[in-house]
Every structure is written in structure tokens, then in C-alpha cells.
């Protein structure tokens, strides 16, 4: 009886310990898989955005595109009122004509004086006439360059797409005044989409350039495939912002708990599933699969 009760006691211990240790083992395994594998929920679709600015300033006389329109490289985006530039061009052409006539006159004068002998024209006069002709020629060339500049201004008053892409968030309207160099239209370059996965710093050692990546788009069944293109080599130090007197402004952090910084990992998109349209700014979960070649 005594022996039997001892055995049953041992059995009770054994069963409990077995199940508890199994639970601990599985729990640790899950923790390891969940916390220490290379994946993040913090992934963003990004794209190259060209900020289109006009080369010349003026009134917008026509906006040739609508919001979210696809444009080809060289397509007209908007037209800046070109009357002023045509006037300037005519002025420059008129100046060039004057300079040309002046040059012809000085040239002939010089030729005439050169042909006359020393008794009629002094050596000094002859020399002056030659230099005057050279000066007139240079001034004529200057005027011609001005004409070319004005022609360029006329041409640049039509603002054209620098690349294939989509016009985004179009706010420019006919009648707006734009300054030269002021960015007024954004074009999202087509085919330039990539994904930025913000990985916690302790996971970076698990990520290598060339590793396969899978992006699960938020709320969809779509999985976008890609590979790791590069890893950012620096992010801002949030705890050290220089103050107005150029001194370090070190944040007194709470020493016990430190948050892992997020480092951007750039992922090149290889394959977008059919029916999926990528938009810059979309959220996705990124998981990195170690490439077989590097697996040990």
C-alpha cells in the first residue's frame, strides 16, 4: 500500500513535470521564432518622386494634365504664358540685327582704310578701324547668344515630363503664378517602386544582401516577392540634437529600458502579382528568407 502510494506520487510528479517542461520548451521555441527571425510589420512601399519645377517663372496659362494621369517622358505638363518670352525674343533678335549691321559697317570701314595708302589714312586710323570691326563682331556674337537664350526661355515655358510616370496630387491651376525653380508638381516615376522594411537593429545580423524577401500587403491576399538590395548605413541619432548654441542636447534616457532602433532595409521588388497595383505609401509585412547559398 505504502509502496503503491509512493509510486503513484512519483507518477503524478512525472506527468506534471513532463507536460510542464514540454510547455517551457515549446514556449521558448516560439519566442525564438517570433522574436529572433528576420521579419517586420513595418514595411512601406516607396517610389522615386520627381519634383517638377519650371526653369522660367510666369503665369500658368494651361495645365495639360489631370490628377493621377500617366504621362510619357517629354509630354507637356503645363504651359507658362509665353507672350513675355516672345517679346523678349523679338527684342533680342532686333538687337542682333543692329549689331550685325554695325559689324558690317565696321568691317567695310576697316577694309576701306586698309586698302587706302599711308598718305590718306594714318596707321593709327587703320588700326583703330580693325579693332572696331573686331569689337563689333564680338558684340554681334553676344547678341546672337542672347537670342539663343531667349529661344530657350520660350521653349522652357512649356514644362514637360522629365520621366514616365504618374502625376500625383495635382494642385496647380490655370492662373497660378510660378517662380522659376519652385516645385509645383510631383511625378511618381513608373517602375521605380521599392520597399523599405524598417527592421529592429538586433535583427540586422540575420539579413544579408541578396536574401529573398516576401512582402504581404496589408489586408490583401497578395504577396509581393523581392530581394534585399541594400541596408541603410545610418539613421539620425534622436538623443543628440544640437541646440541653438551648437551644444549637444543629450536626452536623459531611462536607463533600464532601451528601445531597439529601426534600420531601413531596401528591398528590390522582383515580382508583383497580377491584379495588384502598387501605390507608394502602402503598408506591408516583410519577411526575409535566408538564401539557400548562405544557409549553413
Amino acid at each position: 500500500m505504502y509502496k503503491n502510494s509512493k509510486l503513484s506520487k512519483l507518477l503524478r510528479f512525472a506527468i506534471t513535470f513532463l507536460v510542464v517542461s514540454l510547455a517551457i520548451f515549446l514556449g521558448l521555441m516560439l519566442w525564438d521564432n517570433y522574436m529572433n527571425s528576420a521579419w517586420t510589420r513595418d514595411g512601406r512601399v516607396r517610389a522615386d518622386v520627381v519634383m517638377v519645377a519650371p526653369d522660367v517663372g510666369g503665369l500658368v496659362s494651361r495645365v495639360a494634365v489631370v490628377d493621377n494621369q500617366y504621362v510619357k517622358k517629354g509630354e507637356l505638363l503645363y504651359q507658362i504664358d509665353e507672350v513675355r518670352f516672345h517679346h523678349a525674343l523679338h527684342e533680342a533678335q532686333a538687337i542682333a540685327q543692329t549689331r550685325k549691321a554695325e559689324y558690317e559697317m565696321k568691317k567695310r570701314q576697316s577694309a576701306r582704310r586698309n586698302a587706302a595708302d599711308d598718305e590718306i589714312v594714318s596707321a593709327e586710323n587703320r588700326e583703330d578701324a580693325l579693332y572696331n570691326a573686331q569689337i563689333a563682331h564680338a558684340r554681334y556674337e553676344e547678341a546672337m547668344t542672347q537670342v539663343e537664350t531667349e529661344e530657350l526661355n520660350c521653349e522652357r515655358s512649356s514644362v514637360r515630363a522629365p520621366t514616365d510616370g504618374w502625376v500625383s496630387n495635382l494642385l496647380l491651376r490655370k492662373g497660378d503664378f510660378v517662380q522659376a525653380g519652385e516645385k509645383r508638381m510631383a511625378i511618381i516615376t513608373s517602375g521605380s517602386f521599392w520597399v523599405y522594411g524598417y527592421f529592429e537593429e538586433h535583427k540586422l545580423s540575420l539579413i544579408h544582401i541578396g536574401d529573398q524577401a516576401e512582402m504581404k500587403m496589408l489586408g490583401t491576399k497578395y504577396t509581393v516577392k523581392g530581394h534585399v538590395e541594400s541596408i541603410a548605413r545610418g539613421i539620425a541619432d534622436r538623443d543628440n540634437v544640437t541646440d541653438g548654441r551648437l551644444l549637444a542636447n543629450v536626452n536623459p534616457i531611462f536607463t533600464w529600458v532601451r528601445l531597439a532602433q529601426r534600420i531601413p532595409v531596401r528591398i528590390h521588388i522582383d515580382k508583383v502579382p497580377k491584379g495588384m497595383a502598387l501605390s507608394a505609401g502602402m503598408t506591408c509585412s516583410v519577411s526575409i528568407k535566408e538564401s539557400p547559398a548562405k544557409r549553413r
Partner: protein
Amino acid sequence: MPLDITLFGIQMPTLLPIFVISAVVQILLDRVMSDAGIYNHVWHPGLFRTAVFVCLFTIVCLLIYH
């Protein structure tokens, strides 16, 4: 299985629904085991119950996060 599920535009880890489901399963299993008198053969029923729940939860989760 996906790592995340999205409900009403909110993304959450799949662990969350698994946790709820395994809790329900655990309650049913608890009934069955107590009816079968298994708890008479364990040392510490509370610890045992917790361990069984952890096993249920982690085994399903490990199938997803492997």
C-alpha cells in the same frame, strides 16, 4: 498561413485569434479531463492546466512561425 490577419482595416498578429481559439479548446479539454479523472493523477492541477494550454497554443503557433 499568414503572419498577420486584418480585421476592419486593423492588422494584428495571427497569434491573437489563435490564443482565443486555444483558450476555448482548453476549456473543453479541461472538462473532458476532469470528467475522466486525470487531475487525480497529477501533482499540481493548476500548473498542469497552464502547461497544457501553453502546449496547445505554441504548437499551433509554431506551425505558422516556423
